[in-house]
């Protein structure tokens, strides 16, 4: 980004694009849920339902050369970044046409073409990685920004604090995006943190920071623009806490014993899609046919992705030990 462009862009076209990107993630994941119950998708699967405004508000602001590090809850990030829905879906199926050759599945989406560095299923594990990516860019005097997404739970890990310190100490171009959805599996923030204001943690590392309503995509986008501009101009890290909520279970194995349905329902009313749609209606920026049109487009894309995944192929078992080293220095099964 060259212009600071502090003011939010509120054109109808842009607003509808944000809405469409959020609906695209939502509908894709609704389908994934269905496919999971049909056992097309297996293993652990974590849905982004409720948190779409974070990825949609931030990722489109990044340049093509910028880098992204995400967690196991990363379908939304991958889709917004431009990893094709076809290869994402094939990956969820475990087919070799998937973006990680089928080896990773839902939690390990990788895509070199879009500088998408995964899909890390170890909580906090992506943070030190983002420091290294940014260190390389720093040494090479580039203006690339590395954006690292992680949850509120990760903030309790040592790796979070080590990464924050290193980024600030060495002046590395990292945008830390904490997706604070108030829970780490069943552990509420207040049970996990002595200081529940996560944004404040940046201060003790002398890092610029901001907290934003993560259910409001316009606010996230405005904050994201400030943050990315600051990182790109200064080469220094920035901490952005997005306050959001996950509507669904943590993964497909969660009975949700730790929260009331009423709490979830109350948050649903503040959902990012409803929020933006309501705002557009109130400002007469949306026509009744807009959303059905978007949904039709999106559903066609999803149908194509499913067809792609279904038509995909299983990697032959003879290739089991591939991708362990750059070249197969060990003969198979040695």
């Amino acid at each position, binding site marked *: 980004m060259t212009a600071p462009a502090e003011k939010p862009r509120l054109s109808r076209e842009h607003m509808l694009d944000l809405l469409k990107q959020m609906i695209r993630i939502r509908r894709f994941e609704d389908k994934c849920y269905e496919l999971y119950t049909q056992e097309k998708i297996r293993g652990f699967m974590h849905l982004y339902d409720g948190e779409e405004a974070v990825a949609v508000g931030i990722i489109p602001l990044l340049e093509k050369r910028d880098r992204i590090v995400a967690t196991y809850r990363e379908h939304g990030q991958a889709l917004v970044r431009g990893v094709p829905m076809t290869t994402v879906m094939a990956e969820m199926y475990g087919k070799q046409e998937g973006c990680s050759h089928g080896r990773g599945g839902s939690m390990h989406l990788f895509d070199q073409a879009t500088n998408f560095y995964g899909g890390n299923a*170890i909580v906090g*594990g992506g943070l030190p990685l983002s420091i290294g990516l940014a260190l390389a860019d720093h040494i090479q005097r580039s203006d690339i920004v590395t954006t690292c997404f992680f949850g509120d739970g990760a903030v309790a890990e040592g790796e979070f604090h080590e990464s924050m310190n290193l980024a600030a100490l060495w002046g590395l171009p990292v945008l830390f995006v904490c997706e604070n959805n108030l829970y780490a599996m*069943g552990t509420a923030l207040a049970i996990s943190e002595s200081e529940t204001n996560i944004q404040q943690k940046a201060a003790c590392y002398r890092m610029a920071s901001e907290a934003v309503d993560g259910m409001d995509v316009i606010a996230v986008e405005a904050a994201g623009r400030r943050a990315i501009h600051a990182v790109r101009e200064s080469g220094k890290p920035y901490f952005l806490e997005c306050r959001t909520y996950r509507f669904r279970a943590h993964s497909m194995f969660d009975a949700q014993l730790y929260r009331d349905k009423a709490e979830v329902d109350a948050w649903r009313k503040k959902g990012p899609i409803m929020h933006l749609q309501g705002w557009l209606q109130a400002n007469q920026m949306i026509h009744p046919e807009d959303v059905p049109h978007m949904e039709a487009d999106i559903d066609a894309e999803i149908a194509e992705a499913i067809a792609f995944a279904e038509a995909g192929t299983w990697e032959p*078992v003879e290739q089991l*030990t591939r991708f362990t080293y750059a070249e197969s220095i060990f003969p198979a099964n040695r």
Partner: protein
Amino acid sequence: MQQATTQSGIIDTSYREAVREAIRDAIKRDERVFLMGEDIGRYGGCYAVTKGLLAELGPERIRDTPLSESGFTGAGIGAAMAGMRPIVELMTVNFSLLALDQILNTAATVRHMSGNQCGVPLVIRMATGAGRQLAAQHSHSLEGWYAHIPGLKVLTPATLEDARGMLWTALEDPDPVLIFENVMLYNMTGKLATDAGPVGIDKAAVRRTGRDISLITYGGSLWKTIEAATALAAQGIEAEVIDLRSLRPLDDATIMTSVTKTRRAVIVDEGWRSGSLAAEVGMRIVEQAFWALDAPIGRVCSEEVPIPYPSHLESAAIPQTPKIVAAVKAALGRP
């Protein structure tokens, strides 16, 4: 420690419930015992092992922790040194890597470094193993790796009796004990005596007797090995199946007695083959029973690859019954 087999009654239970009962029993038995770990309380345990225990036993005894594996494992070590008997649950072996420093550099060394002034009577439980399509970062089997470390004891309960009985014995041990619960066993159901209680942890168990070959295994692979032995019996091959139960220390005597009798051995281990526990067991057989052997020792281990997500590749990566059968036939020179 006696095996509790007095027949006051038999119940239908599961491995998961047996572990839960062991935790409940230990906490009720000894006021110094408490459990801490991630999502063990309000969430009910990532594999539902501790479901209901928070309501029953309260937050002092069932302590939810933040995502701070190194921190709370270290806290368990400290609390153990100061007179408590903590059980630390590390969710899975995959996340134990974030606590590896505390386990290896503190828990395993303190007794020695302090010239026996301090000990660490701590129990660390964790789930282990592949088989649920959880991909490379969530499918490790590193128990053999931990068995490399002097100062630790490493247990691998594979039966309901051991799931129920090993915990208390481990808590009574003056040194750190790691208990590995294979994820594929939690749903295993079966019969258990109502008065099942503590079991010994220093002997391997012969789970099936046979004259033709010794199959040496542990944990989740035990049942695949027994299945292989049953299939082999139909073809006239009688395999003896040894459940190691403890990977450190290893019960050499039981292994050598069996191998000396059968003169052949295949080791089944879900760890990767290179530098595996299977390698250690094999080498001990070579050292102690070489002259009794009639054939090279065989091994069925995981393939040398991170565990892939797709089902067919995951299955091919870890030991399976047909591979065990094939290894036995190779050792016997049978088609």
